[in-house]
Each structure stands twice: as C-alpha cells, then as structure tokens.
C-alpha cells in the first residue's frame, strides 16, 4: 500500500490546474481504483470466514439464552465481545502476514517447547470438543426439519471433508464465503420478531447486569464463544496459507473488521429475536434448537425455518473450519508447515489431524450414550482457560521487535490489548470463583 501511494504522489496532480490536455491523466487513477477493488476481493476471506464461524451453534445457543433470559439488558456484553474480537482477530491476521508463520510455530519459537505443546494439546482437545458441538448443532438443526441425525451428521461430515480434500484453496474459500451468506437468515428472523428497537439500543450502550452467578457465567460464555481460541489460531494460519504479504494488510484489516462486526451484528439479531419473543413470553430454553422451535408459535413458521437454516449453515461452516484450524496448528507445531494445496502424501500429519478431529467429533454425537453434555461443558472450560495464555502469547509476539520489525505494536496499541486481556481475565476469574463458591 505504502509504495503504491508513494509511487504517484497525488499532491502533484492536485496542484496542477486541470488542463484539458491532462484529462488522460485521470485514467491511471481510475485503473488503480479498479485494481484495488480486485485486490480487495482477492484478499477478502480470512477475516470474514474466521469471524462468522465464531457464530457457531455454541455461539447461537449462548446468544439465544442471553436474549431469552435477560432480554435486551445484556446486549452490551455482545458489544464488548465484538470489540475484543475485532482487536484480536486483526492482531492474529497481522502476525500471520508479517511473520509468515502460524501461531503454534511462533509460540514454540518464542516461548519454548513446553508452552507450545501444552497450548496446542489444549487446543486439540478443545477443538475436538467444539467440533462435536458443531455436529450436535447440525443434528439438532436437521431434526427440526425431521431429518434423522444418523443421516444428516455423516452426510455433512463427508461433504465437508470432500470439500477440504478436493476443493483446493480457492474452491474451499468460495464455498465457505457462500455458507457465510446463510447468516442473513438470522437478521431476517430478528426483523420478523418485531423487537423493541429502542430497548435494544439502550441494552447495547448501557452496561447493566444482575450480579448473579448465572448472569456472570452467561457474560463469560458470550465472550468466550465469540472470541474462540481456534478462531485466533485459524485466522493466522489462514493468512499464512493464503501467502498474504504486508502489501495486502490494509485490505486484510478491512476484511477482518468487517467479519468481526458482522459476527456481532448477527449475534445482536439472535439476541433481539429471542428477547422480543421468548423473553417477553417468559419461555425458557436450553439450546439454539429449542429457541428455533419456540419461535414458531410466536413469530411464525418462516422465522423458525430461517433460524434453523442459519443454525445448520453456521454449524457446517464451523465444522469445516475447526478440523482445518487444528490441522494447521498441529503440523505447524511439529515444524512441517502444511498448506491446503499440498496433497495427501506430502502432508500426512495435516490430513491425519483433520481426519482425527472430524471422526472423533462425529462419533461423539452419534454414539448412543456418549456424555455429550459433559463434553461440551468441559470444552467450554478448556476454551476459556486456554484463551488467556493464547492472548498473552499473541501480545508477546506483537511486542517482539525481532519478529514483527516495523510492524511491532506501539505502546498505545499494546496497552489497548492489555486492557482487553485484563477484562477477559477478570471475567474468567469471576466465573471460576463463582463456580467454586456454588
């Protein structure tokens, strides 16, 4: 970006009076803008995909419960989570682009073998659990349409794996971007619920909450499900695999911020649609599928269908990204970086990890009597605990001049990260203390 602007000082063109003979000079400018749009479209992807996949079934469930239990009151938690998401997703993308290395490799390089293995092992466990949650979401979503999980889950798993194994980088990216469009369903469902927009706005900007264990847990869960460890690892690996360089940083930042804000907007509409209907009528729900079913008598069949389709799309998007993110991290840790365009033989560990995560995730959902609820709870705990060191590692890398060079985070930006990390730490600690006391 910088060399482009320095190559043609726009000030020169401005100081010249617009002579008729110079009309031709405006052409390169227009051409440049067109190329920049093309570049932006080419860069588009990592941020959008990584952001939106944070609105996975676990996320939708959390947002639904938030809206159903507390109405519009705790919308601001979602706002705070979105800001944290914007901050750390852009940081992850930036680290990936500047260093050209994945998070696992950098942690190994900067913080040593022990930190890296422990972090990636935790990530592996959490990701398997989260993948199970995604497939459970797929199962629940299809069951709303009367399709058995024994058909829907294996079918989706095969579809997702085929996509990754055969699609090539661009193919996968295209499908994932189309899947992301399904999230519009939630916005439609939200509008159909006829919410009280004034109350929603007030909830978004006025931070109040009941100081109960339940409310704190829900606030932490919202933060944790929005800012997921795998999302952070994913966006960095993905930017590396896409071979983006610092020249594309401005576009990438736009992409990441858009993705993160959209994530927040969709979460907002989920909360709002539940608040306007389920909370108003005092219905209680346990998960996103409950919410969809409960929506039907209150907001119509269309709202329910949109909600269910959104749930399935979200789950499929996340179910393809989770094994991918894990595979990137594991092969990065062992020092044999892998890429989506590598074939099976040259990257056995990459595809092996992908298969492991997918198969175990599917099995946990399909095996009758598997303690799915316990696994999902454990997963959330691992994710929350893992998030803190991961953010701390990212902060350390961002401040490392040897790694980041001229892109090292300045003191001002670094203190913003520190404030965000402090807030998240307080949330996790508060939840931990409240859980022990209870």
């Amino acid at each position, binding site marked *: 970006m910088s*060399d482009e602007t320095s190559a043609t000082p726009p000030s020169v063109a401005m100081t010249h009076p617009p002579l008729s003979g110079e009309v031709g000079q405006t052409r390169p400018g227009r051409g440049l803008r067109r190329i920049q749009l093309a570049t932006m479209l080419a860069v588009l992807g990592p941020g959008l995909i990584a952001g939106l996949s944070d609105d996975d079934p676990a996320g939708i469930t959390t947002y639904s419960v938030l809206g159903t239990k507390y109405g519009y009151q705790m919308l601001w938690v979602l706002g705070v989570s979105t800001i944290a998401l914007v901050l750390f997703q852009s940081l992850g993308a930036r680290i990936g682009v500047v260093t050209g290395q994945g998070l696992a490799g950098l942690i190994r390089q900067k913080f040593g073998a022990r930190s*890296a293995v422990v972090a990636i092992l935790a990530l592996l466990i959490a990701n398997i659990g989260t993948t199970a949650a995604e497939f459970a979401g797929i199962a629940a979503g299809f069951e709303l349409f009367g399709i058995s999980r024994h058909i829907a889950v294996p079918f989706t798993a095969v579809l997702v794996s085929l996509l990754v194994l055969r699609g090539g980088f661009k193919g996968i990216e295209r499908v994932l971007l189309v899947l992301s469009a399904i999230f519009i369903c939630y916005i439609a469902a939200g509008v159909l619920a006829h919410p009280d927009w004034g109350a929603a706005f007030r909830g978004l900007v006025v931070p109040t909450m009941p100081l109960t264990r339940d409310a704190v847990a829900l606030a932490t869960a919202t933060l944790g499900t929005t800012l997921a460890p795998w999302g952070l690892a994913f966006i960095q690996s993905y930017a590396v695999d896409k071979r983006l*360089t610092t020249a594309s940083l401005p576009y990438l930042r736009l992409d990441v911020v858009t993705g993160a804000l959209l994530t927040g907007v969709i979460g907002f509409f989920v909360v709002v649609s539940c608040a306007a209907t389920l909370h108003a009528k005092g219905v209680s729900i346990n998960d996103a599928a409950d919410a969809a079913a409960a929506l039907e008598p209150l907001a119509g069949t269309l709202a329910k269908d949109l909600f269910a389709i959104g749930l399935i799309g979200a789950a499929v998007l996340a179910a393809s990204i989770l094994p991918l993110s894990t595979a990137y991290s594991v092969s990065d840790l062992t020092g044999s970086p892998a890429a989506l365009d590598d074939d099976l033989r040259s990257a056995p560990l990459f595809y092996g990890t992908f298969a492991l995560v997918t198969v175990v995730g599917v099995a946990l959902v399909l095996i009758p009597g598997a303690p799915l609820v316990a696994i999902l709870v454990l997963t959330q705990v691992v994710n929350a605990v893992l998030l803190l060191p991961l953010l701390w590692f990212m902060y350390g890398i961002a401040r490392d001049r*040897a790694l980041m060079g001229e892109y090292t985070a300045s003191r001002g930006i670094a203190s913003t990260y520190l404030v965000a990390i402090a807030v998240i730490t307080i949330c996790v600690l508060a939840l931990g203390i409240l859980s022990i006391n209870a």
Partner: protein
Amino acid sequence: MIADLGEAEARARRPPRRFRSRGMLVRQSVNSSLVSVSGLIGAPVCDLGGASVGRLVDVVVRWDRGVYPQVSGLVIRIGFRRSFVHVADVASIRRRAVALGSTKVDLTDFQRRDGEQLLRRDVIDHQLVDVDGARVVRAADLYLTHVGSRYWVVGVDVSFVSFLRRLLPARISSRATAERVLDFAAIQPFGRPGTPVKLRRPHRGLRKLRPADLADLLEDLGRSERRELLSLLPVESAADALEEMAPDHVRLLLRDVPVGQAAALVAGMEPDEAVDALRDLSGQVRASLLVQMPAERARVLRSLLEFPEGVAGGIMTTNIVVMTADETIGDAREKVRSRGRDEAVDGLVVVDDDGYLLDDLSLMDLLANDPTTAIREVIGPPFPGTVLPDAGLGDVVEELIGNRGASLVVVDLEHRPIGRILADDVIDALLATDTERRWPWQQRGPVT
C-alpha cells in the same frame, strides 16, 4: 502354509540378535558423546573447585569459519546478571554440567557481536533449511561435540520425539536422543531478523537445488527467513525459482521485497515468465519495477507487455539466437555455447541480410554437420511453420504439431523473427486456467 512363509520371511529380514544389540551400543555411545544443547540450558556452571557459579542461559557460536559453527562462549546467569564467558575459560561442557577453567574467570556483560548467534534464542525451534533434503525444518535440538579443546555444533535434531523429550524433567530431557539428526554441514541457518545478512554465507548446496525445490522452500519459510534466503541466493537461482511458483505467490512475493530486488528478480526471469509476473502487478508497481531494470531488459519486457495475454506474443520469449546464412556451423555452435546453461536454446533462427527469416536450425543440425560447413548449405525445405504474435493459442498448438518440433518461431508481418515459443510454455499456457480445478467435472480433456 502361507502364514508360515510370512513368518519365516519376517525372521529373515530381522537382523540377528547380536547385531541388534551392537546397533544399540553404537547408538548409546554416539548419544553419550553428543551434548544436547537444549539439555544444557539451565545447567549448573561450576568453577574449577566445584563451587557453583551460576546457570547456563545460552551457547554463543560463530558461523563464519569452517563448515560447522564453533562455540565461542557461553552466556551465564549469575544472580541477576547475564555474563559472557569466553570459550577459552571453559574447561568442559558435558551433559548438564559446565565447568569453568579457573576459579577466576573473565566475566563481561554479554553483548552480541556481528556474526554471533545464540543457539537457544536464535536457532532451536526456529526454521532452518535442510539443503540436502530441500525442505524447511524446525530444530528440535542441537548437538555439540568437542574435538580437542574446541566445541562444534555438528548436528540438528528435527524429530518430533526429541522435541517431546524436552517436555520431560531436566534429568531425562538432557539426554541426547539422536533420532533424526541432520549433519549441520547440510543446514542453511538464518540470522536474527534485523541483523545484516551480508555476514552470513549462502550454503553452497543451495545453488545445486532444482528451481522447483527452491520454490517450495521459499513458500514454506516464514517471511523474514524467506527474505533472507532470497538475498542469500544468486539472483539467477532466485529468478529461476520464481518461474516455478504459482502466479499469485510470485505477485505477492514481488510486492514484499524491496523494489530494487524485485526488479532484479524479474529481470533475471525468462522474458515470457517475467511478462506473466509483471502482468499480475498493478500498473504502478509494474512501472516502478521496469524503471529499476537495465534499460535493454526493460525495453524488451515493455514490448512483450504490448501483446495481450494468451496469444503467441504473450507467451513467447524474445531470447532467441540469430544467425546469418553466411556464418558456419562452427560459429553457431560457439554462439550456443556462449549462452550458458541457464538459457534454454531450442533452435537457431537463420535470417538473410535484411533480417527476414530463412529457416529454423535445430540443435541436431549443429551436431550432424561439419563445423566448417556454411549454414547456407544446411538450410532448405521443408521450411518451418511460423505464427504471428497475435495468433491464438489454438493456432500455436496447431503449428507446433505441424512442425513436429519442440518450439516455434514467431515472426512479424514482414516475416522477421521476433521470438520463440517453447513447448513447455504452451503447456503452461494450456494448464494455466486449470490449476485450481480438482473436481472431476472440472478437468478438461485433451485440447482438440
């Protein structure tokens, strides 16, 4: 019966027991003569009297002399200070024990000097290039050995087992497990980002790598390592490697290096490949690269850029060998020889005094005729088919097949040769649209 056979075969394949135990002994003695660097970190440092002085923080080596890096000193933590001990003051380095040579050693605050590397901080867990295997590795551990009073880094362990060993308590983790150890002589290490590259030498083996392998290396490395490798390589090798990369990656890579270096790289590529790379860049970046190139090369590339993509002019190389009919076969041989090995010469264009194309000589023609023979006597019908620069890919393929050769001459409207299309460029052009298509229905049949 079959099962018996299988078992007998397995027994035959396994080495006899006594050899196996000897193999283990060899491994044990090798492992005990190597000192694991990762195991040394944190080890107690004692003086001659056996009194503890401090703990080892890092091992300092110099790359500049010899094949193997030599240990030049140790960084030791004494209280809150980090001090440097010169290797002359070190009596012995053994597994988890470092002894200093006297009770009074010269301790100075550690300051990195040019050409020095810290093994723990800069090498272990960082990316390295295994030149023999043409791949990027991460060092799980490094092994030291001593010859006389000097210590050398001789091996780099890249196995995951050795990496996991480091998670164990120090008593176990300091034991060398030479699992998959590479000879350090085959390693191209990288410096700490931000330090001058000039002090490090490129590994000799890098020049011998195939361009495609080099391209893979460049794609697998992190950004600063990639930049360092690029500047360590001779420009021709780097340019050859770029020709093997996917167009998108070339574009991004060229945007990532300084303009001067990018210009040198593009100028070093074959003209047709260089034009492809330039086409992918935005107008301004393209212009700035062309300005930085040697004028003659820039002129050639500019003229090639005039042709649209996908026609003969867009895929031809202007790098052609031109002869006149009066010259001899010997002259022609000399001209081909002077081109050097890097430039693919597939044939020689023969022109008359006005520069009009007479014939296309193959390398076979050079071999089959006497050096004193005049080219005039060799040329004659059948005359080669040619294409105009605006000919489409289909016409190019058709002419190429008709010629039964591996290349095709491109002429202007007045039948003057302006370039040559090599068969591999045609293949590239045909495949260019298909690299991302892996689904069965996307794969096209042969071009008809």
